[in-house]
C-alpha cells in the first residue's frame, strides 16, 4: 500500500457474553481504496462494521482514522470527521421530504448558501431531482437507499462505509446503485459490506472475506471468488459430501 492507511483496526474484538462475534481483526484500508467485505451470515462483518461506525463499543482493540485513535467515539463524532455511514436497514427521515433530508446533511458542514448548492448537485448526481419534493416515507425501498447515499455525499466525505447498499433491490436497482457508487467513488476510500455476489463482481477491486469473526483472506476479487476455501465457507461441508 502506498501511504498511510485512512482507516485501520488493530486487534479489534467484540464479545457478546462468551461468544466472540469479531475476534482480533487487523484491517487496513488505503486512501482512495475500495474494499468489499464479504462472508456468510454470522461471519462478523456487520459487527465489525458497527464497531468502525461507532454503533457498537469494541470489547478490545483499536480503530484508527488517519492515524488518530477513534476507538469508542460516539457515532455523531465519527460522522463529524466526514465519514459517511450507510446502515444495513435504510435509516432515513420518513416524515421529511428528499430536499430537506439532503439539506440537513449538507448544513452540518456548509453554510446555508453552500449547502443549497450542494443539495442541488447531489439531486443531480444521484438522480433524485424529480422526487425532490416528495416525502421520503412514501418512496420505494430502492429510492430510499439512494436518498441515504445522497445524504452521505453532502459532507464531501473522504471515507464511505456502506452496509449492504443493495439489500432488497431488484436487478435494475442493483445496476443503478453500482453506477451511483461508481460516480461517488472519485478519490474516496470506501468499505462496502455486501451479500450480493453479482453486485460485488460489478464494483469490487480488493475483497476481504470474513469467517467466524476473523479475516479468512484478502485479495483481488477474481482470486477470492475462485478460491475453494471461500466457496467452502459459503456452502459449508455440503460440497465434500457430494464429492
Amino acid at each position, binding site marked *: 500500500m502506498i501511504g498511510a492507511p485512512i482507516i485501520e483496526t488493530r486487534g479489534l474484538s467484540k464479545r457478546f457474553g462468551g461468544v466472540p462475534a469479531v475476534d482480533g481483526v487487523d484491517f487496513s484500508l488505503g486512501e482512495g481504496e475500495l474494499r468489499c467485505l464479504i462472508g456468510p451470515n454470522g461471519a462478523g462483518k456487520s459487527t465489525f462494521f458497527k464497531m468502525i*461506525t461507532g454503533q457498537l463499543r469494541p470489547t478490545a482493540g483499536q480503530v484508527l482514522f488517519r492515524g488518530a485513535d477513534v476507538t469508542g467515539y*460516539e457515532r*455523531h463524532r465519527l460522522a463529524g470527521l466526514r465519514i459517511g*455511514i450507510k446502515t444495513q436497514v435504510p435509516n432515513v*427521515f420518513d416524515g421529511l421530504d428528499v430536499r430537506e433530508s439532503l439539506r440537513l446533511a449538507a448544513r*452540518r458542514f456548509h453554510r446555508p448558501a453552500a449547502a443549497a448548492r450542494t443539495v442541488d448537485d447531489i439531486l443531480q448526481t444521484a438522480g433524485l431531482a424529480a422526487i425532490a419534493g416528495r416525502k421520503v416515507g412514501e418512496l420505494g425501498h430502492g429510492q430510499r437507499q439512494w436518498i441515504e447515499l445522497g445524504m452521505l455525499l453532502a459532507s464531501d466525505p473522504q471515507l464511505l462505509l456502506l452496509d449492504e447498499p443493495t439489500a432488497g433491490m431488484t436487478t435494475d436497482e442493483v445496476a443503478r446503485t453500482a453506477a451511483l457508487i461508481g460516480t461517488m467513488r472519485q478519490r474516496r476510500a470506501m468499505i462496502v459490506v455486501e451479500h450480493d455476489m453479482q453486485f460485488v463482481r460489478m464494483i469490487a477491486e480488493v475483497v476481504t472475506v470474513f469467517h467466524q469473526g476473523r479475516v479468512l483472506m484478502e485479495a483481488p476479487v477474481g482470486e477470492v471468488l475462485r478460491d475453494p476455501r471461500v466457496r467452502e465457507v459459503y456452502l459449508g461441508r455440503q460440497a465434500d459430501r457430494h464429492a
Partner: protein
Amino acid sequence: MKLGVSDAGRLALAAAGVAAMIVLPRVVELFTLVELAVFCILAILALSLAFVWGFGGILSFGQSAFFGLGGYAYALAIANIGESTVPILLGILVPMLFAVLLGYFMFYGRISDVYLAVITLTVSLIFYHLINSTSGPDYMIGKARLGGHNGIPGIPPINLPGDPAAQLDIAVVFQVSLATLLLVYFGLRALLASQFGRVLVAIRENELRAELLGYDARRYKLFAFTIGAGIAGLAGVLFATWGSFIGPSVFSIGFSAQIIIWIIIGGLGTLGGAVLGTVLIQYLTTWLGESKIADANLVLGVVFIVFVLLVPNGLVPTARKLMSARRRVGR
C-alpha cells in the same frame, strides 16, 4: 416541510389576538376575563409540552413540575423581595436550571421513550411529596412559608417593573397572559423554522440517522427540554399571579396527565392544536363544574372515549385532512 396554517393565516391570527387583547377587556365582564386568562396561561403550559413532545419527541410527564417550580419560585421570591421583576426571572430560570440537570441525567444516559416518561413522572411526584410535607412554620425560605399541602396563598401579582405599588389588575393580567401566549406561539414557530428546530424534528424522525449525519442528539434534546421548562415556568409565574395562589397539586399525576390529554385532543405534532385542545377541555371542565348537569369526570371520560374512536390523531390534524380532501374533491 409543511407546518400547517399558511403565513397569511398566522398573520391573521396574530392580528386577531392583538385585537382581542385590546377589545375584550372593554366588552366582556370581569369574570369571563378571569376565565380567559387562565385558559391562556394553561395554553402556554400546553405549548411547552407540544414543543418538547410533538416536535422533540420527548414524552415528558414533568412539564407540570416545571410549571410548579416556576410558580413556587415566583411566590417565594416575591415574598422576600417585594418587587416582581426578579421573581419573574427566577420563575423562568429555576425550572430551566433544573431541566438542565435532569435533562443531562436522562439524555446523556441515553434514556428514552416510556422510561423517560416514567422518570419525569417520578420526579414530579418527588416534588409533590416533598412540598406536600412542608406544612408548618419550620419550612421557610427567607420570609416565606412553603405551606405544605395548603400551598402559598396571597401571592402578590406582577407589578410594573421597578414600581411595586403598580400591581397589575385582573384585566391587565388577561392582556399579559394573551400577549405572552402569542409571543410563545410565534416564538416557537420561529424556533421550529430555524436550523435548530429542523434538526430537532429530524432527531425525532430518526435519531440514529441524525447522529450519523454528525448531529449530537443529546445536546439538541437537552436544549429543547430546557426551553420547554422555561416556557412552563413562565406559565407557572403567570398562574401564581392570576390566582394569587400556588399549591402542591400542580405536581400531582392528575395534572401531569391532563397536559398530555390536552395535547392528544388537539393533535400531537401541532402547536395550534395544543392551544385548541387546552381551551376546549378546560372550557368543558369549567362549564360542567358550574352547570352541575352531571359529574364532570363522567362526562369528560365519555367525551375522551368517543373522541378517540371518532377523531384519531387529534382535532387539528383531522381538520387539515378534511380540508385537503375537500380541496382535492373541489377540483
